[in-house]
């Protein structure tokens, strides 16, 4: 028992929301702007407590839109910036999120999903903002969204979200839900040095030569924050390499394709998948976040009954791992897609596989998560 006692000292019993705040700070986040909204508010409260102790800044803005604006403003001035919200708040933030993609401002947005649409179920979970995360803001744009399912993943994926945001100079979303945000679970946070921290590629030439979107070194142009002597121009209008507006079709096309390529061209860096009992699986499950945890229990129960089930669980849901799902589908006779909504990710699954593939949807709304037995019933149906 003494060993267990020793390790007890390092075990934290944090709600998921606190895990995310702690991980953000560990990733070097030094700016948070937010607006109160259930069930994400504990992230803001925790950042308000820890940031000033580290010399960082917290501000509660007058609305969700302003919070997203402040985060991008701080990022352009050099901050590693975070905001957290829930469905209605993300709806409000979307225009400025698009601005973030357009000006290539690194930042992280956490959405603790709750039932919707509209005010919906503020204190109850859902996984119904997945498509909003991908397609919510207007216009073509790249998207990276991470969907951790466990406490240790909320920690490491939050750090990875900052790393990807910095490395690719773009906003990155982390989607959890009310289950995970309010669930306390024992975890030992990794120590500094046990995880990698990546900062944005910086311009190392003379400030006066800086062009904010000059891409001779690849699709991610180096960054130079404001006040370093470059006096660059930032605009949500389509712009050329110098940052100034252009309506030249060729230049706009070039810019748009480069923005998309930052994601399509870096899949090895971005993709992350966990396979569970997948090697000999005859039935495949594709699920994510808290619902995937129910699926894991269902898989165990099914295997006790002799049904070979396995799961592909994306940790990166955007870009969607279409190729990996296709490969996975080839080894199984049917796919099951449990998601806590009325059917969103299943569309991505469907377009990843051959049209004759059996795909069983398991969907639910109403605030009570999909439980293992509901998934088990689905497994038995296709077995």
């Amino acid at each position: 028992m003494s060993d267990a006692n020793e390790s007890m000292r390092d075990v934290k019993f944090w709600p998921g929301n606190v895990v995310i705040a702690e991980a953000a700070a560990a990733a070097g986040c030094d700016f948070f702007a937010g607006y109160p909204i259930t069930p994400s508010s504990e992230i803001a409260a925790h950042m308000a407590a820890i940031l000033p102790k580290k010399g960082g800044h917290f501000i509660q803005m007058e609305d969700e839109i302003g919070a997203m604006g402040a985060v991008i403003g701080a990022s352009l001035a050099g901050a590693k910036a975070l905001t957290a919200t829930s469905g209605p708040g993300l709806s409000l933030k979307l225009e400025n999120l698009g601005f973030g993609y357009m000006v290539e401002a690194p930042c992280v947005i956490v959405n603790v999903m709750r039932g919707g649409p509209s005010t919906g179920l503020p204190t109850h979970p859902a996984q119904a903002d997945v498509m909003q995360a991908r397609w919510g803001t207007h216009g073509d744009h790249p998207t990276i969204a991470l969907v951790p399912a466990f406490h240790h993943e909320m920690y490491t994926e939050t750090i990875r979200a900052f790393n990807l945001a910095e490395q690719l100079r773009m906003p990155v979303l982390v989607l959890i839900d009310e289950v995970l945000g309010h669930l306390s679970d024992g975890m030992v946070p990794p120590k500094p040095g046990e995880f990698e921290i990546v900062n944005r590629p910086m311009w190392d030439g003379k400030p006066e030569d800086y062009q904010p979107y000059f891409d001779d070194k690849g699709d991610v142009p180096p960054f130079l924050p404001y006040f370093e002597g470059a006096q660059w121009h930032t605009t949500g209008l389509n712009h050329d390499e110098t940052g100034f507006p252009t309506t030249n079709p060729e230049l706009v096309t070039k810019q748009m394709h480069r923005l998309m390529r930052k994601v399509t061209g870096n899949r090895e860096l971005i993709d992350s998948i966990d396979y569970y009992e997948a090697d000999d699986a005859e039935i495949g499950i594709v699920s994510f976040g808290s619902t995937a945890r129910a699926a894991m229990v269902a898989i165990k129960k099914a295997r006790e009954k002799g049904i070979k089930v396995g799961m592909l669980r994306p940790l990166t849901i955007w870009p969607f791992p279409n190729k990996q799902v296709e490969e996975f589908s080839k080894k199984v006779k049917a796919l099951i897609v449990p998601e806590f909504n009325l059917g969103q990710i299943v569309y991505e699954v469907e377009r990843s596989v051959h049209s004759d593939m059996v795909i069983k949807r398991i969907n639910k709304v109403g605030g009570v998560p999909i439980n293992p037995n509901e998934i088990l019933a689905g497994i038995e149906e296709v077995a």
Partner: protein
Amino acid sequence: MHFEARFSAVGGQGIILAGTILADAAHILGMHAAGSPTYTAQVRGGPTKVDVIIDSEMVLYPRTTEIDFFLSLATDSYKRFATDLKPGCVVLVDPNMVEFSKEDEEKYNLYQVPVLDLTQKELGRMVYTSAVSLGTMVALTDIVTEEATKEALKKRAPKGTEMYNLKAFQVGYDYASELLVKKA
């Protein structure tokens, strides 16, 4: 090993803390524990509960499915939260506060502990309700040890109240232990 516990009461009785301490005790013993409180808009006086799931391995499904231990200190919370209880679930109620049916007595392993009276009489302050509750729970189940729970309680208790919290724990533990002996 997999164990599900639910503490329910009305907001303000400190029941959420009891859940945290139980989870800490499980961690001290090298087990895994996860828990979440139910959030309602009414902060004070409304029915409230906390679920704690203890497992020898990582907790997968984070919600309760078959509850092994259920404690209730108010009829409101009893009515609302006495769901998913296993047949034979250890149910602990404060008989002065909770109305329960004959049926429930037959279905569950039901114990009556006047938690609030005990707390008032022995400690004089209702803030110790959660420690008394924990004491009864530890006595009636064998999921965590007395020592581990006391250690966790000491750590979570506000400075200066450790002694009183430990006393409260003992009051609950002793009362429930006697019940067990009588029942046997």
